């Protein structure tokens, strides 16, 4: 213990890079072509007065198994960038919507052969009307571009995708379903 006041230079207050920039590079473990920023699950990244980086993260689906991985990856990425104190908080409200996937995210999805979602259904108060008809969702084939596609199943390999087939090129593909 020297007893002298530890003086920090102006450049010594933490990593030069913004924590938001670091957090935005972390990818979704199930759709790794998307960053968490593209997916719209990163609700806030800020530095508190004591230097703690607070990241607010929202789950896509209640049971999304990727949440824990996203949290761990954010912690690792920010620690590696030199942020020692990181607090990743879950934010449940407002609930995530596919409308929050950015234009850049939609472009990357299509490029990876996954049809991006259309507009999410409106969230209205009151009873949710029953929909007994065949799915009215439309998605152009991300492989050949044909609009002539059909839904095989509303539930696909991950919580957020449906399974479709192109009638033109006959290839199956995934579609991020609107929610």
């Amino acid at each position, binding site marked *: 213990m020297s007893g002298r006041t530890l003086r920090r230079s102006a450049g010594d207050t933490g990593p030069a890079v913004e924590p938001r920039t670091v957090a935005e590079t972390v*990818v979704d*473990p199930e*759709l*790794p*072509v998307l960053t968490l920023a593209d997916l719209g699950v990163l609700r806030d990244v800020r530095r508190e007065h004591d230097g703690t980086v607070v990241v*607010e993260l929202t*789950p896509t*689906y*209640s*049971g*999304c*198994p990727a*949440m*824990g*991985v996203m*949290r*761990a*990856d954010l912690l*690792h990425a920010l620690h590696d960038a030199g942020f020692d104190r990181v*607090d*990743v*908080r*879950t*934010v*449940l*409200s*407002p*609930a*995530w919507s596919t409308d929050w996937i950015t234009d850049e995210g939609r472009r990357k999805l299509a*490029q*990876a*052969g*996954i049809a991006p979602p259309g507009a999410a*259904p409106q*969230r209205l*108060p*009151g*009873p*949710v009307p*029953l*929909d*007994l008809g065949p799915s009215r969702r439309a998605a152009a084939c*991300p*492989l050949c571009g044909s609009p002539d596609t059909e839904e*095989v*199943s*509303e*539930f*696909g*390999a991950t*919580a957020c995708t449906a*399974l479709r087939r192109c009638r033109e090129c006959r290839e199956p593909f995934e579609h991020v*379903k609107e*929610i």
Partner: protein
Amino acid sequence: MGHQETVYDALTAAHGDEARWAFGTGFDDPLAGVDATVPDAVDPADLGAYCLMLGDDALVLGQRLTEWITRAPELEEEVALANIALDLLGQARLLLSRAGSAGVLGRSRERAGPGVPDEDALAYFRDPDEFRCSALVTAPDGDFAHVVVRLLVAATWRLALAARLRTSRDPVLAAVAAKAVPELTYHRDHAARWVLRLGDGTAESHRRARTAADAVWPLTADLFTATPVERRLADAGVGIDPAELRDEVRGVLTQVLTRATLAVPAWPADAPPRGRAGEHGPELTVLLDRLQDVARAHPGATW
């Protein structure tokens, strides 16, 4: 194919570290960082008991659905049932964690031992008489028609409830409900389309769907009877009196069965909610034996 390779290339490139695939019992707290304050003038024990009822319904129905993986009529349907079960498991995790944060852990805490999160203590270390799920979800399945008819009834009830809970005075319950509404809409409409397909299909599928409806309808008897906890929470603007759901649920179910050319069975008279009091048939014991076996044999284990 070229596009598909891009996805998987990215997966292996970005996922070199071993920590990423460490799924197992070592889940994070699903409510990490969420403010757990209980609203004014609400008994935390009531809020916790309510979260247990709704969490147990989701946990047990989810477990019932996973019993159909490898047994559903088509591969796509197995994926669908697994997805629905996963949504329900997610809802259960949030609700059981909320029950734990409200202090409603009972003897599960000491049985589980230290290091086991509240949600796991509640899911794996309660005995059948400590579960608060309704008879609708505990009943064993018959055939696939029974699966979709029961799912239709359960999802219709739960969606009607969740839509109302979006304005709960408890911000956590309101947020969990708001997330659940779009999920449950998918579940209900998926089940409804199957009931249509079976009811308005062949003579055999019609017969099976009718038999399933006859078996499931009596299980709705206690769905609209409030427990004292639900009455108190409804008065406090936190919970919903399930009697309020009766007309909407019956209306939706009648609409689906009618479209499916199925006779709507007689509605049973209201009955006391025995499941909410921990009174269950032996089928819940069998289900929980399977659900809890590994966690109880190796408490605190992760893999």
